[in-house]
Each structure stands twice: as C-alpha cells, then as structure tokens.
C-alpha cells in the first residue's frame, strides 16, 4: 500500500481564551437502537433519547448528534483501527455505519468568562447555562461553517470543525473577541 500523504494540519492561532486541541481519534457512528446499545458496551454513548447530550468516560466521549447518529471522540493514542475493531466486534451484525473521521476535523477550545459571548458572535443558539448546560452538545453553525459545539465545563466549549474551515473560524472568532477581550 502506498504511504499515506502527510496530513495537512492548519496552523491555528492561540489566545488566552482559545487554543487548538491536539489531534484526536474521531468516529462517526450511525445506527439504530440495537447497534447503539451494543456499541455502548465498549464506548460511552448517550442514549437515543438523551437529546443533545454528551456522555464521557475518562478521556473518551460520545456526542449525541441525532436520534441515530453519534460522534465518538478519543485521544489520538487510542488508534482508530483498534477502536473500530472493538466497536465492530461488539456491534456484530446489527445494521450500522462506522467511519473514521479523525482527520476530517480539528478541535478548538474556547474558554473563559467571555466564551459564550464570543461564540454567540457567530452562533445563533442561546448559550446561557440555563439553555445550554454543561454536557450539552449539538451540531450547529458558526457563521458560514458547520460545527459541533460541546460545553465541557461552565466556561469551556469544545468546537469541532472541518479542518478546511478551521482557519476561517478561528480568524472570525478572533475578530469577534476584539469586542470582549483586551
């Protein structure tokens, strides 16, 4: 097999309130209730009814994206091949789709007392703690880019964004942040 071409990682700016996250293993999972229950035995996955909830176990997390769809996040040290193998053998013959999308997107952490306001400069959701509590995650939009937004702590958000949009999103957030952070 020819050697895979080097992965292009966009260089993203850092600030007190923003930093690019290290590479991670990401899997896109789609499947019905049977496949979901089976996969949940080997990886933390939210129930189908747990709308827009993330379920964590240590450094692994399953994010509810739809009634039949989840984004699985794990550190890069957990190889995608090993994780795929474990999930596939757990799921067996139940109909499902499991795709390695580790290199499709990059993670950005937005944090600090102004994090909500900075994100709200380009994201139309109500991000107050009452409406978007810790542990909530959803696919949404950040200006013209599609993102997955996950509130990991009261003042910490994780933004998962396709990597060709990442430089645009980071630059836009920096521009917005000029109103809020010195």
């Amino acid at each position, binding site marked *: 097999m020819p050697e895979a071409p080097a992965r292009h990682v966009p260089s993203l700016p850092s600030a007190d309130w923003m930093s690019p996250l290290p590479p991670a293993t990401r899997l896109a999972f789609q499947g019905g209730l049977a496949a979901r229950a089976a996969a949940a035995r080997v990886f933390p996955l939210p129930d189908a009814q747990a709308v827009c909830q993330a379920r964590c176990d240590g450094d692994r997390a399953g994010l509810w*994206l*739809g*009634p039949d769809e989840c984004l699985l996040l794990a550190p890069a040290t957990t190889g995608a091949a090993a994780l795929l193998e474990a999930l596939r053998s757990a799921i067996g013959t139940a109909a499902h789709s499991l795709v390695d999308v580790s290199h499709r997107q990059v993670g950005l952490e937005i944090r600090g007392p102004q994090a909500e306001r900075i994100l709200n400069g380009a994201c*139309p*959701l109500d991000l107050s703690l009452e409406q978007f509590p810790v542990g909530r995650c959803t696919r949404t*939009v950040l200006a013209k880019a599609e993102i997955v937004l996950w509130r990991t702590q009261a003042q910490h958000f994780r933004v998962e964004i396709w990597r060709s949009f990442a430089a645009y999103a980071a630059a836009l957030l920096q521009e917005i942040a000029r109103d809020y952070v010195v």
Partner: protein
Amino acid sequence: MLLIPCPHCGERPEIEFTYGGEAHLVRPADPSTLDDAAWADYLYMRTNTKGVHAERWRHARGCGRFFNALRDTTTDRFLATYRIGEPRPAIAAGGAR
C-alpha cells in the same frame, strides 16, 4: 430570527434548516403504468397553498433529520411540526401559536 421547533431537538434557529418541499406526496406504486400527464402531475404539480401548508423540512445543521411542518404561508408562522410517518395534525389557520 425565525425559530423552528424541530421534533427531535426543540426550537432552533432557522438557518440550521433546509426546506424540503410539499409533504405527503406519495410516489405512484408503478410509474410505468401512468400516462405522461399523470406522471408530470406527480413530479411537478404542487398545491401552492395560501394558508396552512404541510411541508418537509430538514434539520440539516442539527440532528440531520427530515420532519414535516404545518406553516401558514400568509403569516410564515409554524403551527405544528411532527416526525416523518406521523399523521398530519388537524389544525386550521390561526390555530396554535
């Protein structure tokens, strides 16, 4: 911004959604038996309702699911949204919301 109640995710901003055309159109079981007029009627002819209109929407930048909605085309108000497969709720113009 218009808020659309997704039956899976709740009220979400309009820009997360895409429009999917008129709802409850049933594809003829055996198109080869239709004449051109009947087939064209299925493909192209829509009711163009003034008032309560049943239509499909997709929460494309959200849960990704299609659902059906009743919208009053004169006021742009969403009267009801319901999941695919559920029957159309009986709501007249000026109803809920």
